[in-house]
Every structure is written in C-alpha cells, then in structure tokens.
C-alpha cells in the first residue's frame, strides 16, 4: 500500500516536471525563436556579430553569466578575505580547484536539495513570493548598467532613476518577508530594513545627483560618456564617499549590517527561510552587489573609460575593485546601532551631499569649460 502511494506520488511528480518543462520549452521557443535563429545564422557567417547580439548580452556578458560568476566569486572572496584578516583559514577545499573556490557552488547544491519549510502560522503566499521578488529586484538593475557603448542590455534616458526604483522596492519586499514569517525576529529585521532605507536613501539620491549635474543627464550611458577626460570622483569626492557609504547601507554590508544582525536577532528577516528560498535571498543580495559596483564605477570612476585596454575590460576591472572594497568592510568594521545609522544619515551624510552640490554649483563656469 505504502509503496503504491509512493509510486503514485513519483508518477505525479514526474508528470508535473514534464508539464513544467514542456510549458517552459514552449515559452522559450515562442519568445526566443527569432533571436536564436539570428544567433545560429551568425555562427556560420560572422561569429563576431554574436558578441553584440541582445541575447548574448542578456545571457552571458553583462547579463546572467557574468553577474553569476562575479557573485559567486564575491561570496567566496568575502569569506576568504575575512578569514585571512582574522587569522583563520576560511573555505579550504571543495572539489578539484584550490583555495575552496568551489565552496559557493557546493553551498548552492546543498541549498537546492534542502527542504523548504513553510511555518504553519505564516502567510504562505507572501512568504513564498518574497524571495522571488527580492531576487528579481536585485537582478533587474543589472540590465541598466552600461559596460561599454555597445554593451548595455537596456538603454533608457532615465536609467539612473529606474535603477533607484528597483532598489527602492527592496526594503518593502524585506518588510513583507519579515511580516509573513510571523516570527518576532523576522519582523524586527524587516522593520530595521525599512528604518535603514529611510536613513540612507536620501543621501544616496543627493550624492548621485552631483554626477547627474556634471553630466547633465539621467542616463548612465551619458554619465559614463561625460567622463572621457576626468573622472567624477576627482570633481565630486565628497559625493563619492557619501555614495559609497550609502551603498554599504543599501547592501547591508558590515558597518550597517543591522537588519540581519546575527548576534542580536538570529538572521533578521530571513530567520524562517530555508533551502532555496534562503539561497534566492543570498544570491539576490550578491547580484545587487554587482549592480551597485557597476553603478559606482559608472557614476564616479569613469565607467569604461581608460587607457590601453578596450572598453568592457576597464569596466570589469572597476567592478571587481569596487566589489572587493565593499566586501572587505566585513573584516574591518563592527556593527553600529540603528539609531546611530539614522542620526549619521540625517545629520552628516545629507549635509555632506548637499555641500558637494553647492561646491559644484559655485564652480559651474569652470566645470563647463573643463568638461566641454
């Protein structure tokens, strides 16, 4: 009896997987029929055209493949670097490659096969949808960051604002995740995420505004193009520092790792999450790290501009440097309290960002000659 029900269950499972696969393949064929045909035809005529095809951009270079690799490297690098600083070893061996560099992949496999536990008193719909929404909100801004004049997935005249739209949704998703878990630690973590947003978001807008003022455009492409001569970190250093601080708070990196303070409130808003729902949160956060490194590089470090080597490589190097700076804070800083962050955001970061904007306004005639 038991074996027959089990067999039935597996039959149903197989049927479900087959139907899902069929629907997926049908959708893919409908959506990707023309682009795939284009790519296949280029393969035989002119292979170099594949490299600038939109499908290649979405799936491989500025899109999914590149971001995934950088995110995995960032997870590994964060653990390894913090371990070195604290005189530990860190991840040591996993698979054939040295240095435990495959450890994130092993973690991913483990999370994929773990059971997803949904608490009994939770709000099931929101509880399951929140990690998916968090991953989407983390991955969407990647499409807006230009890696060279041709390597951008979605070029839009207001791409900087759209970037902030996507990142502005994130704390709302976290609050919903914390609320739906029906756990006091999760709820406190969600509220902390929202308080944190209230403290860092305005300085972030204001400091990004100085780059907008210098380039006279909201488009990230135009902002990068305006820095062919001089990088904006030279002209607006205070804004760059304020923006970097705000990015640390946005990514919940170490001095501001307040919403998921593990020594205070277990794991914050993701206390009740397990298996791949937890994995989606982690991957979303690290994909957002890549997106914000790209944004910082475009706003203040000149984007793809640089001597000798071609455009996308400069951008890749800058993204790597900024991501390394962001994840290295884990080893150096203690966690501050939420009220300290709010008072720092409102009484120090906002005046500093406004101060730099005033300086730029005062230097306007000189800057016009410099940048033209």
């Amino acid at each position, binding site marked *: 009896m038991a074996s027959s029900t089990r067999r039935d269950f597996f039959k149903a499972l197989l049927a479900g997987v087959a139907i899902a696969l069929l629907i997926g393949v049908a959708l893919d064929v409908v959506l990707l029929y023309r682009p795939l045909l284009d790519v296949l035809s280029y393969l035989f005529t002119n292979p170099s055209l594949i490299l600038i095809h939109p499908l290649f951009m979405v799936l491989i270079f500025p899109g999914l493949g590149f971001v995934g690799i950088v995110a995995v490297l960032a997870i590994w690098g964060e653990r390894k670097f913090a371990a070195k600083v604290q005189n530990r070893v860190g991840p040591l061996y996993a698979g054939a490659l040295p240095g435990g560099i495959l450890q994130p992949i092993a973690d991913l496999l483990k999370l994929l096969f773990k059971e997803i536990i949904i608490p009994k008193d939770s709000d099931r719909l929101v509880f399951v949808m929140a990690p998916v929404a968090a991953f989407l909100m983390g991955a969407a801004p990647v499409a807006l960051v230009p890696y060279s004049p041709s390597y951008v997935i979605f070029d*839009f005249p207001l791409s900087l*604002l759209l970037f*902030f*739209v996507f990142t502005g949704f994130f*704390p*709302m998703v976290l609050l919903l995740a914390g*609320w*739906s878990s029906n756990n006091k630690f999760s*709820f406190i973590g969600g*509220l902390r995420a929202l308080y944190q947003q209230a403290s860092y978001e305005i300085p972030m807008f204001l400091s990004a505004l100085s780059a907008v003022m210098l380039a006279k455009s909201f488009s990230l492409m135009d902002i990068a193009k305006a820095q062919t001569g001089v990088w904006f970190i030279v002209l607006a250093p205070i804004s760059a520092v304020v923006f970097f601080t705000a990015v640390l708070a946005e990514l919940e990196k170490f001095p501001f790792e307040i919403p998921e303070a593990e020594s205070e409130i277990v794991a914050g808003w993701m206390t009740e999450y397990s298996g791949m729902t937890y994995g989606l949160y982690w991957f979303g956060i690290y994909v957002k790290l890549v997106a914000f490194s790209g944004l910082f590089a475009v706003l203040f470090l000149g984007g793809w501009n640089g001597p000798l080597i071609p455009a996308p490589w400069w951008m890749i190097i800058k993204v790597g440097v900024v991501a390394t700076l962001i994840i290295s804070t884990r080893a150096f800083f203690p966690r501050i309290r939420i009220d300290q962050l709010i008072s720092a955001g409102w009484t120090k970061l906002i005046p500093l960002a406004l101060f730099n904007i005033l300086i730029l306004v005062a230097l306007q005639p000189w800057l016009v000659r410099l940048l033209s």
Partner: protein
Amino acid sequence: MDYIIPLVLLTYTSIMALLSLESRSLVYGAISLAGFFIGLSLFFFLLNLPYLGVFQLLVYVGAISVLILFAVMVIGEHQKAGEVRRFRAFGLVGGLLLALAMAFAGIILLMSFLDVSFAPLYSVLVYVAPVVVLITFVVLFVGEPKGRSHYRYRAFGVLGAALIFGSFTGVFSYLGGLNAFSGEVPFDVGRLADFVMNNYGFLMVVLGLLLASAAYGAVALAKKEKEEEEEER
C-alpha cells in the same frame, strides 16, 4: 494587436484597485495599492510619458506604499499573518458586475483603437456614471449595513467606479492615440528643466520653499513632542 497590452493593463489595474479597497487584510490592501500604482505608471509608459512613469514608481511605489505598509504594520491590525480571511465580501454578484464593467471598458478601448467614433457613448457615460455612483453612495450611507443586500450596494458602487474609470481611460487612450502613439516624442530632461524654470521658475521656488518648510515643520513638531516628554519625566 495593439489593444491587447492596454486591455491587460487595464484589467490588472482595475483588479488591483478593487482589491486594495475590498481586501479584508490591511497588509494585502497595501500590497494591492502598490500593484495599482505600478499599473498606473505602466500606463504612463504606454502613453510615451517615461518621466512621469518613473516618478510615479519612485514616489508612489517606492515611498508612499512603503510608508503605508510601514504604518499598517507598526500601529495597525494586531492580526497574525495566518489569520488572513478570504475575500467573501464580493460574492458572485460583485464578480459578475466587475466582469461586465471590464468588458465595457474593453469595448471602449477597442473602439478608440479602431478609430470608431464613440462620442455619444462617452457623453452618456459621463452623465450616467456619476449619477449611478451618487445614488450608490446615498444608498450605502443611508441604508442599513447588514446582510447580503449591503454587499449588493457595494458591488453597485464598484460598478459605477469601474464605469467611470473605464470611460476616462478610454478617452485618455483615445486622446493619447492622437498624439503620443503616432510617433517619436522628443525626450530631454534639459529641455524640460529649461521649460519649467523659464516659465514657472518663481512658482517652483515658492513650491520648493513650501515643501521644505513643511518637512522642517514636521521635524520640529516631532522633536518638540520628545522634548516635552522628557520634561514630563
């Protein structure tokens, strides 16, 4: 095929607006409100007004919905997440009327895209719909709110609101079809800034000062309250 996207969007936006009014759980209502704002901003994108659409997203979804959600969660319902009840309020009548209203709005949209003149229909709608809504509200507030009849009145009101929404959306899509859909609209933040500052510069400054003083006033009020509390101690 052009009308399919507006039709889907219209359905989505109307359903979200209705859910934000009708859902029993305040949190779900706030989420639906955010979804409604997103739908509205997508309409702006559809009408070739990306600036307005992005700001709708940034301000209404990114800030106002979050604040509403925050307020609901901090001071609002002391209801556990698991105790969310289903939307029984609507029932069959409301659903049927909603479907009718949606179909009506869809027909108006279709007519606008097929360049069929719908001016008589539109004028009838504009005169009839407010009367319907007015009667509904009078009945709602005068009548005894109990039993199934109450829900029927509510469904009636919902129908009126959907009629107004549908007719206005149809008209705006039609007007937008004359200008926005026809070609590329030049889009430039610098020109927009020039236009606003040259024509309405003084007003902008006054408005900015007003908003800033309002923000400072709010901060001052909050601050004063805390100081008084300390004095009381």
